[in-house]
């Protein structure tokens, strides 16, 4: 297998792990970790796609931007988790539903 194909398979595996994690984890911190795993898979896919197209610079710069934006998202999610814990006393996402009747 050539390098981009290996990278794509790796990216797919990472995204899959992250997806399963976000869907099954009930702890908000764990959800955040799973989202991060998914995003790292996406980053690899971006760089690999750049390499496969012969535009590695474009892929890498896109990855760098996504990395920055994603970090901000992670920080906000963690800050929200702290607030959720303070307000509701739990991090269990299934216990946090207030819209349900």
């Amino acid at each position, binding site marked *: 297998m050539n390098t981009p194909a290996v990278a794509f398979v790796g990216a797919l595996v990472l995204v899959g792990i992250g*997806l399963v994690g*976000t*869907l*099954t*984890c*009930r702890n908000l911190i764990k*959800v955040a970790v799973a989202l991060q795993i998914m995003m790292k898979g996406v980053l690899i896919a971006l760089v690999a796609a750049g390499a496969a197209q012969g535009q590695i610079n474009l892929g890498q710069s896109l990855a760098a931007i996504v990395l920055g934006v994603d970090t901000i998202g992670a920080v906000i999610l963690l800050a929200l988790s702290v607030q959720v814990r303070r307000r509701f006393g739990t991090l269990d*996402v*299934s216990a*946090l*539903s*207030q*819209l*349900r*009747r």
Partner: protein
Amino acid sequence: MNPILTALPILIPWIGALVIMGLHRTRVIHGVAVGTAILNGIGTLLLIPLSAEHAQLLIPAGQFWGTWRFSPDSLSALLSLIAAIIGALAVIFSVDYMHGTNSADLKRYYGLVLLFIGGMSGLVLTDHLLLLFFFWELVALCSFALIAYYPHNPAAAAGGVKALVITQIGGIGLLIGILAVGGTAGDFSFKALHSSALTPTLKAAVGFGFLIAAAAKSAQFPFHSWLPDAMEAPTPISALIHAATMVNAGVYLMLRFYPVFVDLPGWTDCLMLIGVVSVLMGGLIALLTDDLKRVLAGSTISQLGYLFSAVGAGAGAAAEFHLLNHAIFKGLLFLGAGAVIHALHTRDMGHMGGVRREMPLVFATFLIGSLALVGVPILNGFWSKELILEAAVSHAPGWITGALLLGVGITALYTYRMVRRVFWGRAQDRAPVHEAPLGMKIALITLAGGVVLSPLCLPDLGVVITEVLSAPVTLLALGIILLGAGIGWLRLPISLSKGMLQALDRGLGLTPLNRISVQLTNLSAEGLRGLHTGVLTLNLAAVVGALTLLMIILLVGGAL
């Protein structure tokens, strides 16, 4: 002149609204609101030279949207000026009316009012169907939020929701029409409606969709029942939104697209029929209620009915003129009523009476407005109403003219009754009141001046005067006015039976119809509540599933 000035009537109020959001002291909020509104009035005056030189503000907005074009012509300049000037006067009036409100509520109030004024100008200035829809719904949203301005009053909340839902139903007709035009002609500018790609069937669907939208917005039969309930709003709002500007948006839509749809079979007849029924029904509502503001609301439905009939009869110029005059005298009447209500803390005419001596200036201006509403000579309402009647005589079937003349009589009757019950008679068991404060006086006097002077705006005033005075229908209308007022003077027991009153209050069987639509909306919302599981993992699974589905569709679509 730089065409970018066309955007001023939209941008000035919106920027003012944003500034107000950041303020805290109530006096500063009042000051900024008044300053913005007056500045906007001056900025909007620039539309007159701009429309004369056919200025166009073009904003390229991508492949899908095409070009956003804002191009003032005489019709949009007129409506934009009405919104800006009556808006400024309503804001000046509000300084006294909203005196003593806390700063958070005041910010919400002025923010929404200024957002509305800008939205109304945008609605009439734009030449892009999707933007028209955006502004159309924006003003509906402001209207809803201002009707329900006192959230702790259940009647206000219910009235707001009712107005929103009913105008939304009309909005659906507008949206379907716009999408049909855009999808067929591939263009969302107003020119697209003239495109030859539209088949006659499609054009009919669009025309009647627009008609439904206009009737719902202008509170015309069978959608009229939201307007009386909207009277829970603060009175300056009733004057601005529910008498002078937003309810005219429907008439604007009909005037603007009249040349497109005039050939549709039955379209003009439908317009006239809706107008005539609204004239009579609005008159009856005004005649049989004890609530001062509901009288004015019924009267608004009735006068807008005249506008619809006039557009249907092909008298666009007369309709435009009456629209301007109606905005002025109805704004004046609402603000006068607001001054009385503010002083007496009641809207029930049974608890008024004798206000004439205590508030002579409010009485004088209110009387001028009432006479204009009735159509007494020299005041503006006379000229425009006679022009409409004359157009009906020459272009409409006889029974429509007859119904419109009957409406003139009913107008005289309920106006006489309203003025007598509020201003004459003895003061009932109530505390003595004082003359209105300065801000209110300024607004009232300005509008009363407008009632007298607005015919001078007409370019061909001399022609109109000779035309009106030589028409036989003018004498007939004056006779009917005298007859109506005479019946009022006789004080015939027109309160009728309780049962009939209730039937009318329910909109003669039409309120249930409206209620059903509201309940259907609520029901579907409740049905969708099941989707609000609140379980994050489930929602995420749905998001992932939807994305996967979208990807599959894109892949398959690309392969095909």
